[in-house]
């Protein structure tokens, strides 16, 4: 179909993108891997030597690592559960014949466009502040003790903020998928006397399966890297109360200048993300063939 010259031109047009991306991936990756085997701290210049697996050993046996892994798991898992279930519910609701759907859509998607530092600061000060926050006022007006969110439930606070940002994404994707559902199928089910339960589990949920998987996998990739929300609200604390893996590595490399340890952490983070990525790639690859 395509001529020899157009194939050559095609390769010529493709190669710049491939080359820069290859460089962007390989160079830092090799450097991270190299540094992870070095004893190298920017505060001690001139002292750099091969360290074997020392960095990995220190990184993995540090109690902060266990805490960070657990926090990462809770943060990713918590936001996933809340945004997927909430997203399915909201998508079903917004798919009903309701008044003002266009304005409602805009209101619902709005949080997704707020930059992470703004949403973290707004929640921290105007909502979660134990004295002046809206949530404290709500609590006292129904006779409850206000909660100092960031001090007492730091991880839950981060989960709330991040869920607020990602629930709109899940809703939008699932609503889009829902709207491509063949209405005749539902009407046929109606005529067969299927109840709403049967319709949901037999028709709607299977139809949404692919969109749900996409939402889970894409959110996971982004949620593993949550950073600004933690930096702005809790700085990972109190203690390691809300430190995730990304934040731990940031602290070790840019606050303690430990290049070796930070790099070892980086390698661990890459391995973790790869496990998720394998599933995502398989899914999208299948989709590409379809």
């Amino acid at each position, binding site marked *: 179909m*395509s001529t020899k010259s157009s*194939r050559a*031109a*095609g390769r010529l*047009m493709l190669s*710049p*993108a*491939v080359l820069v*991306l290859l460089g*962007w*991936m390989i160079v830092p990756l090799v*450097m991270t891997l190299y540094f992870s085997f070095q004893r190298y701290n920017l505060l001690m210049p001139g002292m750099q030597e091969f360290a074997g697996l020392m960095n990995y050993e220190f990184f993995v046996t540090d109690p902060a690592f266990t805490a960070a892994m657990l926090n990462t798991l809770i943060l990713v898992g918590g936001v996933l559960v809340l945004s997927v279930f909430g997203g399915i519910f*909201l998508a079903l*609701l917004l798919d*009903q*014949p*309701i*008044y*003002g759907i266009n304005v*409602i*859509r805009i*209101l*619902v*998607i709005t*949080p997704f*466009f*707020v*930059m992470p*530092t*703004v*949403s973290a*600061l707004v929640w921290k*000060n105007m909502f979660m502040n134990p*004295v002046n926050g809206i949530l404290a*006022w709500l609590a006292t*007006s129904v006779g409850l003790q206000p909660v100092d969110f960031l001090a007492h439930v730091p991880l839950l606070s981060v989960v709330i903020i991040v869920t607020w940002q990602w*629930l*709109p994404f899940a809703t*939008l*994707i699932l609503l*889009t998928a829902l709207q491509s559902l063949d*209405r005749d199928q539902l009407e046929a089910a109606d005529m067969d006397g299927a109840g709403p339960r049967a319709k949901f589990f037999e028709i709607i949920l299977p139809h949404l399966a*692919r969109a749900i998987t*996409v939402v889970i996998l894409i959110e996971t990739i982004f949620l593993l*890297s949550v*950073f600004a929300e933690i*930096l*702005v609200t809790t700085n990972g604390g109190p203690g390691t109360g809300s430190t995730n893996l*990304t934040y731990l590595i*940031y602290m070790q*490399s*840019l606050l303690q200048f430990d290049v070796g340890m930070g*790099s070892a952490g980086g*390698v661990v983070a*890459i391995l973790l*993300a790869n496990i998720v*990525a394998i599933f995502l790639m398989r899914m*999208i*690859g299948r989709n*590409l063939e379809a």
Partner: protein
Amino acid sequence: MAHLSQKRHVPLSILAWVIALAMAFPVLWTLVTSFKTEAVAVAIPPRFLDFDWTLENYRTVLRRSDYALHFWNSVIISVGSTLLAMLFCIPAAWSMAFVPGRHTKNILMWMLSTKMLPPVGVLVPIYLLFREWGLLDTRIGLIIVLGLMNLPIIVWMLYTYFKEIPGEILEAARTDGAGLTSEILFILAPLALPGIASTVLLNIILAWNEAFWTINLTASSAAPLTAFIASYSSPQGLFYAKLSAASIMAIAPIMILGWFCQKQLVRGLTFGAVK
């Protein structure tokens, strides 16, 4: 379309409005607070709409000479990184969509896989390289990083758009003896333009809100709004109203863009898996 035949549902409409307003409430509340004086902003019980509205906070924030700098940094970095990436991506996506080879699918999948690399995994080397090359706290440094970071998404989005351009048009043009240049200029460009425009918009949004590299690779002079707003995290006390005004100015332009790009957003962020 099916909705036209159905009667609109009042209780469900009320429920949907309540939830939608609750979800947008933090943004609406920030908007309202930005028009308050600092004293009213921290009043308990909160004052919702019955207060003396003022534009003073916007004036104060705009008077800070650095606000304009950070705003322009955001504009230059998000637009610059998107355009830089487009320079590489349009030819690449074009060739994969119209002259697919044996390896096209593998290349696409590999490009996507680089996006899965967590940024923190390469934080140390990028930081050290930037320090070495004097790129720390420069706009050009961030333009390069954000451009490279979003390159896979841009290629994918363009690819899914280009794929929808019917190949027969091209073949017809080729049999008519159109050369490569006229093929691109007169046939593909007009058809591809809407897809390119959507891709540009979505990526400006993504780059505008990027908050890992922008915070870690800038200090002051090249800091975009994400990093500038983060610097508000330390002061306590009477600053809610000014914080709100600064926040609204930081998110408003991109939010309005975003409302118009909902469809592209779905498609771009799911790599064409959900349309």
